[in-house]
């Protein structure tokens, strides 16, 4: 498998950088090429970075609860930019308040994310997902 490029960042006005930084550190250690946009990143910046670096996946963090507002239309932006098949993950504390995870997950899958990670997800799980999904794409030759 060729080295894959991954864009990470924390979307919107969200400053929670710790989990995103630990995630980026772990992905880098696992052999991925990382484009880390850091905290407080507008949606458009993710897309721009993905195009510029010919990325294989975008990992969006949102912890502060307003992710539901910030992430709306993220997939559309990708489509507009010609990244219709981009692998999109989102993770963190995605909505305001404590809600059953199934409900929250559905909101974000419906928005067009390929996977959504529940609060407190560990990096090991994310590494597994990526290996599986990117491997799958490689196998069926789906363009990133």
């Amino acid at each position: 498998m060729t080295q894959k490029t991954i864009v990470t960042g924390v979307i919107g006005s969200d400053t929670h950088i710790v989990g995103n930084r630990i995630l980026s550190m772990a992905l880098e250690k696992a052999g991925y090429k990382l484009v880390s946009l850091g905290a407080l990143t507008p949606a458009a910046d993710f897309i721009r970075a993905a195009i510029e670096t010919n990325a294989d996946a975008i990992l969006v963090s949102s912890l502060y609860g307003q992710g539901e507002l910030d992430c709306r239309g993220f997939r559309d932006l990708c489509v507009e930019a010609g990244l219709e098949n981009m692998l999109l993950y989102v993770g963190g504390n995605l909505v305001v308040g404590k809600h059953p995870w199934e409900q929250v997950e559905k909101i974000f899958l419906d928005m067009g994310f390929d996977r959504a990670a529940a609060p407190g997800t560990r990096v090991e799980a994310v590494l597994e997902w990526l290996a599986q999904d990117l491997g799958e794409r490689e196998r069926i030759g789906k363009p990133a």
Partner: protein
Amino acid sequence: MNAPSDPDFAAALSEARIDEDLFGRMRVRNLARWPTGAGVNLDEAIERHERLPAHKRLSAVMRAASAEGRCLTQPRGGFGTFELQKELMQVLDREGLADVVPTTTDSYTRNEQFHLAQKGVEESERLGRSLLNGYPMVNYGVAKAAELIDAIDKPAIMLTGTAMPKLTGEISFAGGYTGYLGSGIAYTSSYTKELSIEDGIRNYQYLDRLTALYQDRGIELHRRQPGFLTGTNIPPSVAIIVAILDMLLAAAQGVRNYGLEMGETLHLVQDAAAVKACRELCQEYLARKGYKDVYTPITLLHWMGAWPQDEAQCAALVSYGGTLAAIAGADSVTTKSTHEAFGIPTPKANAEGLRITRTAVYLARHIRLDSMQEFKDEVDLIKREVRPVVDKVLEMGDGDAAVGTVRACEAGVLDIPWSPNRWVKSRVMPARDADGCLRIFDPGLMPFPKDVMEIHEEKLRRRATRENVPFGVDLAVQSVYEISEPIAKLMSDKRAA
């Protein structure tokens, strides 16, 4: 955000009190930034504060608590619509028995994206649930703020987690809020990415100067510094270094009632020592700079790092958070709830967090550690860490705390762990040691004395040895997760006896 071309920022940065005329012009420009700014009328505001009974003025309530040796409880809390916010504040007052009632603003307001906040309000009102993570104070304006104050029988504090407090400050003070949490160094370094430390300091100089304006008119407001910073394993010394600098900046503007907050380390002795060291060092530096009569109460905060998912484990963290604050002799404690790992708590869960904490405070109110050797040693160690750094920062500014801070951040002399801000090096790296204290694994470029760093290293090496892991940065990463792990992992019940 503040552009460099902002006329308020024309003068060179300094800690000096903003000149009265200039401040008048700054206020006019500030209040014109959003329609509700027009609702601020200083004379009416002063009258409103004069009508408030003492038990609704945070400055007086904090002073009384200190005099009585009492530890007050205060939650956090903000919802996206006025109705939800009012109900929340009433529940926290009546069912939570909060001594201080909060209003947390939403993250758009924190970043002065008032148009986005307006969309959030409208959607929240339509859906009947809060899509914003706090109350959009600026969008609702002064009259609504006053209605919130009237709805409760306690003093209210603004919790805004912002480096841009100029409009929320004006509107909330005008509405009768008597406390405002936030400071230039702490919040800029932990809540922003692009804003420079200099701009953050200037923004808070405005707020502190505004506080002094009220003070000149006979209204003492409570300002407070959020020493928890990024909330992620901040060792007491790092918190206190920033606290002292932010406090000196506020005192220079004329603030007289200035609280200092620290996130709990969760180690009883270290937290108690942190409170004592912070209290003494603040007064020491105030005296050195010639400020008299600045009252500096200390607040501890429930664990600010990642929380476990199990509500039972959370209940213990909430309760111990009260125990630690009471034994440390903190003047108040800021509470969390059993929902912390998931999302903003319901009013009910928030009120329960308050009652758990209040009970814990009650149970431990008689305990003090002063005669304990480990406690004395820890106070001493913290002071040996704080003084060299603060002194160096002041020296770099030729005695000016504002200038020194900016230069020290650039140089990494002043540094903050896990900061999102690109003007902060964020090379300093904390980790938990073998005894459960937070220590400095990597000082980055901070000028901690060699003998002190040896103590830290020895204690961290002991942990690495005991856990049979390498002495490396993973100690720090593991320490980010530790408290959020399932208790079955932290302390197994499976044993081969």
